[in-house]
């Protein structure tokens, strides 16, 4: 296990993502409404560069037939390769929660973003 001091906290404001050269594919650190999440840049579906995907929301069925409800804006990552949706806050894919992207503990220490990666 190793700790990596990656950036000053203010460099990744809410809504932003920054990709760091850690591991084989890189690790993306996302700020979702003030909470940080670190995800492997490797989609669990087909190995796409997941963290480069669009940060978006998703939908649920609304109360009326055919109505759409927009939920969780800013918490869903859509892979740029095949558009699988991934929940940034858990790493789980939306359609198959058994499949998830690797996530890493991330915190702010003395104003620095620190990620913990297994060696």
């Amino acid at each position, binding site marked *: 296990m190793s700790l990596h001091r990656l950036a000053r906290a203010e460099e990744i404001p809410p809504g932003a993502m920054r990709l760091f050269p850690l591991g084989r594919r890189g690790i993306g650190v996302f700020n979702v409404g003030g909470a940080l999440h670190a995800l492997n840049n490797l989609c669990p*579906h087909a190995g796409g560069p997941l963290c480069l995907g669009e940060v978006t929301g998703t*939908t649920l*069925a609304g109360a009326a037939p*055919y109505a759409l*409800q927009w939920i969780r804006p800013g918490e869903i990552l859509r892979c740029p390769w095949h558009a699988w949706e991934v929940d940034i806050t858990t790493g789980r894919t939306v359609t198959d929660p058994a499949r998830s992207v690797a996530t890493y503990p991330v915190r702010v220490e003395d104003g620095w973003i620190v990620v913990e990666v297994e060696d």
Partner: protein
Amino acid sequence: MAIIEPEMRGRNPRILDCAVHPAPKAGDDLRAYMPEPWRSRPFPGLQRYFYPAPNGEADPQGATDPEQTAQDVLGSASAAILLPLTRGLLPDADLAAAICRATNDWLAAEWLTRPGFYGSIRISPADPAQAVAEIERWAGDPRMVQVAVTMQSHQPYGQRAFAPIWEAAARSSLPVAVQIDGGSGVEYQSTPVGEGHHYFEWSALYPLNFGVHLASLIAEGVFARLPDLQFVFADGGLDMLPPLQWRMDKNWRPTRHEIPWVDRTPSAYLREHVRFLTRRREGPADAATRGRWLQLADAGNLLLYGSGYPGWDQCDPAAATLGADAEMSAQILGASARAWYRRLAV
């Protein structure tokens, strides 16, 4: 005329024939069941297909003698579900609805008086209000065990205009059979790139339109909203279901956000909501390969025997179950249909 081997004579209580096609002796016979102004209104005959079958269709299209049909069909099956044609899509939605009403009254009066025969409530989805009224008119009659609609349609069946019809069917525990019934000239062309020249092309391709309605019913959330709704594809197609279901399941993952009411893989709706009838002997011709394909297609759960009597391409129990093991054969020939048709007590 069905060919029933002598050893198949005598009712087989295990067999339930889900597709027998009766027809009036002459097209105009239906007029006796139509009030004016419809009775004197011209409308197309049953013999209207642009793609005649290789040996020509029986004229009129279907079995016309209840007594003979009972002997032929109930010789091998304990009960039969009757599925008459209408006139398909017509420019005049009111006339189409009137023909459906007359067909139902004719069926009830001339065929359903006989034990062992069960009926289909023909409706014309072009006018949902009249279709719902017709379902409700028959919902209390235990001889009617399903609703039937044309495969031909101007919109896929999941789209919202049809929702009240499916609600009415589900409310009365009536599965909805989808049957090719066209040729009147106002339906869309039989392929998206125009008409093939031959019956060969039409008969190979047209039944695959089940996929359009099935994908629509799933994608529009009709099954998700109506847990009791059941659809039966009466022209077969189970042989083509596995590849279609692989495609739908794969495409659903990146597009789920468009259709969030689909909260499971599309194929997960099939067992609860969809059945296919046997049409000819679909699938590979050799028994071993067909047996594997039937397993792949979940035929034990999804396939129901329908002879298609008296059509030229009718399917007997042996052909319908080619390659199936004993357990699956019993399911196909009757056990699955008994569980599926909730109003049928045989």
